[in-house]
């Protein structure tokens, strides 16, 4: 297996406040990797930096062997990194279809876009049934499906999902996690940020614990699940 994404001693700051101090991790092709950690640990900042919304202060980010640390967001996306942001952030005043088309904004193959759109509708039938409705009218879980579907539309090699289960009912959460697994089986590499550490680690090939802006622990998902420190800190056991 080859490393698709390598984050190397990353540090990011908002003005004087250092949100990420020293985060390092590797995502292998075809894996699901999750970052877990408390609120404010720097997970979201890490994802936003990878996708080019923020600029690192130090450290490097390599995708497929090439540094993307200094690229603007639209270039990073066209390299094959899609990011479904925290809080879903669907375009509320646009229809489902328009949201998905925006996900495919950088693609030129119209036929392929159609195919992929139908694939999203198959995966999430509720979206297919209401494709002309404004996204703002959908429930939280449905919006999450739309956000994931939208991120898939760019045909990414790496899909980054930030808190996909946030605010969702247990049933909906299960559905989302099933979908993530299915996406992996179809060949997409996934980087997941989750507060629901239990479910996330169970799903993941590899997990990293981020604490106060640093990666402190790492290991295969099941090992971390069994780790005493992780259980104490994040699983409430």
């Amino acid at each position, binding site marked *: 297996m080859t490393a698709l994404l390598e984050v190397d001693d990353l540090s990011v700051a*908002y003005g*004087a406040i250092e949100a990420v101090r020293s985060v390092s991790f590797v995502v292998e092709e075809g894996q699901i990797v999750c970052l877990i950690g408390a609120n404010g640990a720097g997970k979201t900042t890490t994802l936003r930096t990878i996708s080019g919304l923020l*600029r690192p202060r130090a450290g490097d980010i390599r995708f497929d062997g090439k540094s993307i640390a200094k690229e603007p967001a639209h270039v990073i996306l066209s390299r094959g990194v899609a990011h479904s942001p925290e809080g879903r952030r669907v375009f509320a005043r646009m229809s489902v279809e328009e949201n998905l088309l925006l996900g495919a904004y950088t693609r030129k193959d119209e036929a392929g876009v159609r195919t992929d759109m139908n694939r999203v509708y198959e995966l999430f039938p509720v979206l297919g049934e209401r494709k002309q409705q404004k996204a703002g009218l959908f429930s939280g879980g449905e919006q999450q499906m739309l956000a994931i579907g939208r991120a898939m539309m760019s045909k990414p090699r790496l899909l980054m999902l930030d808190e996909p289960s946030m605010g969702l009912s247990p049933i909906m959460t299960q559905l989302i996690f099933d979908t993530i697994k299915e996406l992996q089986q179809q060949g997409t590499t996934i980087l997941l940020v989750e507060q629901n550490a239990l479910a996330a680690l169970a799903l993941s090939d590899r997990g990293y614990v981020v604490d106060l802006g640093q990666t402190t622990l790492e290991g295969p998902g099941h090992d971390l699940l069994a780790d005493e420190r992780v259980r104490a800190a994040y699983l409430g056991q």
Partner: protein
Amino acid sequence: MSRFTGLIPLALVRPFNALGGLLLLVAAMLPWATFLLNDGPFPEKSTLQYFDAPFELTGFRWHLLVFGVVALVTTFVPLRGKDRVLRALGWGGLVIGLVCGYFIAENGGGFGAITAADGASAFGSVVAVLGGLLLILGSMAKPLDEIPEWPTSLFGLTGMAARLEAYAYLIVAFAGVLWLVTQTLTAGGIGGAAFPYAGPIFLAFLGFAGGLLGALHGIGLTRWVSHLSEKHRAFSIIVLLACAFLLPFPFTGAGSQYWMQVAAVIGVYAATAIGLNIVVGLAGLLDLGYVAFMGIGAFVAANLSGAVASQVGLDLPFPVAALIAAVIAGIFGAIVGSPTLRVRGDYLAIVTLAFGEIFTRAAQNNIGELTGGASAIPGVPQVTMFGTAFNEKITLFGAELPSGVLYYFMIVLVVGAIMAVFANLKNSRMGRAWIAIREDEDAARAMGIRTGKAKILAFLVGAMLAGLAGAIFVHKLGTASYDSFKFLESVTLLAAVILGGMGTIPGAVLGASLLFVLPEKLREFDDFRLFFFGLALVFIMRFRPQGLVPDRHRRAELAGETAEGKPIETEEEQAVLEHEERGHAGPSAPKEDRA
């Protein structure tokens, strides 16, 4: 500046500085023009024909010599903040060189006039520009030093002794300010046909004054003085007023009728600018029709003071008329400000603009027979108090003071009073509420500030000050015409406030002075005045949004720095955008101060 940090290697700093200082010094002694200019020799004996002795220096050449010597000394002595000093001296030298060089070249037949032609050579301006550039480059090697802090008492005194020591410093400092003000006012003399060199001499003097102040700021002196004066505010105000009262006396050189005229007009605009600064600088509400309030004050005062052309037929004493003018302007201010209850800043800007236009249109059409329309209201009588009309000459302490001096005195008092009001307001409950609204209106409301009331009050106070200034203005001028209160006057006032520094008193006064003195000095550029004001707004916002005198009590809201306690979303947003911007700047330097 940080973008240029590291432009030159550290090892070159000292050679650059030394050479820069030396070049300034040499420039002072070189001839500056190969030709005799059409309007007679360029002053300060810099034209070749009049260049008899290299050491007989006056005017800008004397200034350059001082800069050069100071730069040389500063280069080789250890001094905290020296890179700022050298940078300021460099800018000063650069400005002097550019201004004089450009003027000579423009008037004396092109580039040859400032280099070599017809067997004569005159490289003065070129050398000065080079020297200035070297000094500026030298300051770019590394980030600038911190401005050093000075102890309150230099001799470690306490109690009464320290107080007296501070008083002594303040007197010296304000005497220095008085000297600089008179020099600035009179530099180049009266512009226009009378003296064609007024413009370049004045601009070159500004280069000197700016370099001097910048250097003093660099070693921490200005900050220290302002700290002292804040600590002893009452004493400072007294000394400042005393200095202002000394200005018209003959020994200052500014005591002529003409300069009193100019100083009085500047005073009126300074008062108005302070009022505008309450609205824009403190409360963060952009008012684009501000001059209309001044106009309302002017027309009210004109109608109440027995102007011949007035249809009202009242003849009230000046203080009463001025008070009524201020109150009526204030009422209009509150009315215009009232939409702020519902809408935010940038919409409000349009409402105020609309109001200003309505006012101009109404005044132009002689609304209610109150404004005289296109023929204005002429014959507004002079202010008379204690049997003396304010445009008469007076004798004070054995010195004969020029006519118009009483208006000047009155305006000094009014500006002083307005300054006091502003300073108190700024530190009051209401002042803090305004600043909170400016920073974040939602947060201010969430903290229980009644934002609507505060905003309307800002408008009311600002409009009252403008109304009062208008009342003085119209008496001084003797005529009330709608022409004096048009949109572009509002723009000029706004430019003054922004140039000076939003939210600061010295800033508003300095800005108003510069923007209203410059046209006096640069008559030949009068046609370009507004064009340059427009460009100035753009450039100030881009490169120095905090203005010449930044408000250090708060983060300069326009400088985009981060304040403590701001919600993280905002900062995040900032960082994001910063990145976006840097994305285009190519390879990114590590993040550091962007100010």
